[in-house]
């Protein structure tokens, strides 16, 4: 069976005054209908990886890859028009902060209906019905009222659930969630994650979960990629994370407080410049 997504030797480069800056350096991985976590600190290239799968890196940024295959089709060979059919309908993305990722001057209903009608043929009334169903699926009470609301009237948790609804309404096969809970109150993070997880599972979708939070990813995903300075330094099953060997992953793990093994002082992560030079780890 072909995997859902295959990324081979992905590079993202940005020109700067001092030459090309490599944001992502030769990343490769495969993804089935599973939950893959990508973990790294800010600037490690994890978001760029997510965005280049959707070919959303705009000039002057440059993306090269041997291939990015979705169900065997190489997205790198797609024209912009073909990519538009992929975006939303087959691969979708939830971004960090609904305060910025929802259009402030459009009502929630308009934005949901638009997301459905870009790809599906059907009347406005049907689009509206789908939107209401989708809002219910993300546990929005009183969806009729929320349809008329504007983003500034919503709480963060509600905004992010609407964002998830909007991204899932055309029934994509793969969802990229880029730090979907980092901007939310701790109290609603779990709820939003749970809703997202349930929908992804029920629909048999693939999920790429991008986060800086190692514990969260370990709990939530099946497999984890650890990124550092644009490279994948380690990849392992989420439940085997404590067995990770790479010193960076170990450093990250040791710098987190643990209830089962309390320490007087947390370790400070020491970085080795050699990590950034080593080639990316191949998919296992």
């Amino acid at each position: 069976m072909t995997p859902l997504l295959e990324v081979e030797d992905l590079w993202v480069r940005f020109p700067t005054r001092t030459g090309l800056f490599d944001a992502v350096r030769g990343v490769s991985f495969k993804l089935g209908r599973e939950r893959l976590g990508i973990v790294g600190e800010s600037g490690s290239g994890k978001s760029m990886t997510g965005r280049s799968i959707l070919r959303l890196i705009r000039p002057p940024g440059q993306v090269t890859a041997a291939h990015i295959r979705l169900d065997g089709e190489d997205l790198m060979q797609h024209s912009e028009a073909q990519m538009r059919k992929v975006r939303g309908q087959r691969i979708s993305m939830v971004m960090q902060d609904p305060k910025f990722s929802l259009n402030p001057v459009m009502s929630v209903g308009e934005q949901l209906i638009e997301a459905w009608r870009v790809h599906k043929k059907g009347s406005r009334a049907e689009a509206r019905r789908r939107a209401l169903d989708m809002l219910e699926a993300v546990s929005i009470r009183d969806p009729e009222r929320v349809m008329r609301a504007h983003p500034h009237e919503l709480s963060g948790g509600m905004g992010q659930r609407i964002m998830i609804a909007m991204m899932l309404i055309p029934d994509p096969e793969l969802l990229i969630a880029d730090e979907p809970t980092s901007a939310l109150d701790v109290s609603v993070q779990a709820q939003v994650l749970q809703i997202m997880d349930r929908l992804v599972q029920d629909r048999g979708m693939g999920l790429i979960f991008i986060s800086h939070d190692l514990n969260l990813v370990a709990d939530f995903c099946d497999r984890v990629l650890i990124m550092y300075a644009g490279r994948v330094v380690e990849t392992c099953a989420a439940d085997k994370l404590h067995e990770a060997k790479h010193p960076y992953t170990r450093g990250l793990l040791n710098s987190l407080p643990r209830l089962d093994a309390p320490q007087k002082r947390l370790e400070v992560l020491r970085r080795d410049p050699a990590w950034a030079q080593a080639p990316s780890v191949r998919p296992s």
Partner: protein
Amino acid sequence: MTLGSIAITMLGLLFVTFLIGRVMPIDPVLAIVGERASPEVYNRVYQELGLDRPLLVQFWLYLLDVVRGDFGTSLLTARPVSEDIARVFPATLELATLGTLMGVLLGVPLGVLAAVRRGSWIDQIARVVALVGYSMPIFWLGLMGLLIFYGILGWVGGPGRLSIFYDGMIEPVTGMILIDSALAGDGTVFRDALSHIVLPASLLGYYSLAYISRMTRSFMLEQMSAEYVTTARVKGLSERAVIWGHAFRNIRVQLITVIALSYAGLLEGSVLTEIIFSWPGIGSYITNALLSADMSAVLGGTVVVGLAFVLLNVFSDLLYKVFDPRAK
């Protein structure tokens, strides 16, 4: 702007014009009684005009007159200033409206394109267009236009609103000849009026375009890097839908303010344009009154233009509330 602050601004505007009127080196009494009047007559008129009262009382009386729409009598036309203004204002309005229309219809798309294709040739053109607009004296550009399109090429009508033989053929209803002649169904006069207005209106339109395209570009640049634009792309929308359906919708509110500002600017900027094209509008009226020391007319004209300024600002604030869901 609240109602209170509008009132205070208007009051301040009137007070400043009132003060200007008082320090003008023209004796309003002499202007009425003439140079050879006896001291008794002079004193009587002096008192009738209330010039012996304290300044604030005089301002109060002036205020009462203005509220009643009484700006005094023009020395030049010997008619009430308010009547004069009612006659000349539509000419300015017609010109400024057409100019703004051109500025908006061309400037907004140009600004959007320049922002979306930043650094491309169209962005460079937009930059040059704006730079030239900011640097060129409007009266000179008007003269050059007259020289080239009227003098040399003969493509447009010359100065004035109509050719002389059509003058007075159309009954003024709105005072705007294009509309009046269209209402009367008179194609000949309409075409003549059009050939006269096209050059001055294009001139004002160019300045409006320079300003509006520049502002549109900077607003759009700000929006295009916003996260919701990425969301729109993720949805699979075409670039056109992303630009016009999402980013542009977010700058409408700011654009309205800019357009109102530019419109107000044209009402004022038409002073010089009207002189060049002998356009009988409020700009010509104020300037001619100024040159012949016709104080009431100058002040009345200034107050009316200032009033139009303030009202346009209020109007754009109101539209703000209609278009921005966050302002409710």
